[in-house]
């Protein structure tokens, strides 16, 4: 019962939160929520379909870049239009990558998605489109009617709304015929094919949808930060988002959100000199060791923690 109600409680808390936020916690919470949208989009692939992609940051980056590049140079762009184009362009690239990489399986799939993400990285890193390593600033945040992303409360509700919307959409997908087919593919693809499902098409559809949602996360990130650079597409980012969903627990939408929060907070903790002293200079070491210990001890992620504690007793 409590478990069922949990996402609703969190949603209500998030909607009521702006009144209580300091600028620091506001930024942190926004960051967590954007990353949660990103993590949810990957959860559709990894948790629901069983496809381990190590190139998911490409779609985040493409969404973010398209938002900045398609905005008018000095005036605010149309938020709705930019959101849709960010999702659309990411989906197109996902269609290209998915069509090719889904011809492979397992370890191959991991490597191929990684390689295509690196290709996208080089497009923004080396060609004039992305204007090099320094990245690009978004001069004016987009607007739509009465909505203005320059306003912090508006931006907050945009991000919160998108997170709740993404969560709801994926929860519906999970319950749909499509979602059940994906679950079937995850468990036994051969059998699904024998039953008469065109598994390739189903997987491709999941890949494109995941790419589009990652593009939406990219749009939010670009609007929130007002800045993009090629590092958004780097494979470290792809690894980080994979970490988030594992940290939270694969196979649960709650896990992706929880994992995103845990990852962002852990990184924040290890990189704050006030809290951890000299460790902050080498936060990656602390983070890396934490991950190793964590994966070794808690293969089911944070979601599995209560059951594990109960089991011990």
């Amino acid at each position, binding site marked *: 019962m409590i478990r069922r109600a949990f996402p609703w409680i969190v949603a209500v808390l998030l909607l009521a939160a702006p009144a209580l936020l300091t600028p620091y916690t506001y930024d942190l919470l926004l960051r967590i929520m954007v990353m949660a949208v990103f993590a949810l989009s990957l959860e559709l692939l990894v948790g629901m379909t069983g496809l381990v992609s190590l190139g998911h940051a490409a779609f985040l980056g493409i969404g973010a870049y398209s938002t900045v590049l398609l905005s008018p140079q000095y005036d605010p762009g149309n938020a709705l239009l930019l959101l849709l184009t960010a999702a659309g362009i990411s989906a197109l690239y996902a269609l290209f990558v998915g069509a090719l990489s889904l011809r492979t399986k397992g370890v191959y799939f991991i490597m191929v998605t990684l390689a295509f993400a690196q290709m996208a990285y080089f497009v923004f890193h080396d060609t004039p489109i992305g204007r090099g390593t320094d990245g690009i600033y978004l001069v004016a945040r987009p607007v739509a009617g009465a909505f203005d992303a320059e306003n912090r409360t508006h931006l907050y509700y945009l991000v919160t709304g998108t997170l709740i919307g993404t969560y709801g959409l994926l929860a519906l997908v999970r319950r749909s015929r499509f979602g059940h087919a994906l679950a079937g593919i995850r468990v036994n693809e051969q059998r699904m094919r024998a039953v008469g499902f065109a598994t390739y098409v189903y997987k491709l559809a999941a890949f494109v949808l995941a790419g589009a949602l990652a593009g939406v996360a990219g749009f939010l990130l670009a609007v929130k930060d007002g800045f993009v650079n090629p590092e958004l597409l780097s494979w470290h980012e792809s690894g980080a988002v994979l970490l988030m969903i594992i940290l939270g627990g694969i196979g649960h939408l709650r896990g992706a959100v929880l994992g995103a929060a845990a990852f962002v907070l852990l990184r924040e903790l290890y990189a704050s000199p006030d809290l951890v002293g000299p460790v902050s200079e*080498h936060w990656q070491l602390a983070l890396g060791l934490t991950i190793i210990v964590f994966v070794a001890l808690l293969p089911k992620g944070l979601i599995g923690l209560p059951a594990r504690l109960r089991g011990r007793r």
Partner: protein
Amino acid sequence: MDLATFLVQCLNAVQYGLLLFLVASGLTLIFGIMGVINLAHGSFYMVGAYMAFSLTPLFGQSFLLMLLAGLVLSAIFGYVLEWVFFSYLYERDHLQQVLMTYALILVFEEVRSLLVGNDVHGVPVPQWLAGAIPLGELMTYPVYRLFASAACLVLAVALYLVVNRTRLGMMIRAGASNRDMVRGLGVNITRLYRIVFAGGVALAALAGMIAAPMSSVYPGMGGHVLIISFVVVVIGGIGSITGALIASLLVGFVDTFGKVFFAEVSGIGVYLLMAVILVWRPEGLMRRGY
């Protein structure tokens, strides 16, 4: 493009391809035999380059001796690493392997930063290899690059002989095509794993040491090599040394000539090559059935 330029670019392509082969061959064997996806393989390349940087003052001009010392050190390093870390990954799924080795990269990078700092370093070319051979009227070609190609070629031949002509190689090939059967036939698989892993680490580290005098030694240098090696493995087919060799040379040529003709988009060429191969043969060029 005149003939001399063309030849120089060909030499560069072969040299780059062979260097990639050293990294990718270890990667493909580790995949093929142990079924472990090792994201930290690029870090071994970096470890090699930094080893060249810190060993050069000790060995001075005796470059070959230094390579030998590096080979031994990195093989021991690989052996121990397999023992204390990687041997726990075999039974886990790919996802967890990805995470654990990703975390290992973070650890390696930070340990490197603690030990040698974050500066970019250069490694001097040993004097007896420092010259340049004149080609035509204007062009010269550095001797060290020829040496690098030759050294990689020697290692590639040695690897070929070990894999195809020795008892150990037989077990490795058998392991790559059917792991469980090899285990079932009573081969000490634990030891085989450890040796293959140590060999893979040693090859990657040697590649890093050989590359160090040509490129500078810098933080994060393993990442790029890792991804290109993945491309090589995908093109060549997992577990196939021959496939890795063909694919490395292909990638070497595409990358080098891509830089000559389409400088701006050169980073993309290799990945397009991979896309074409995936359409044509999704299992890689030399994949044997399984």
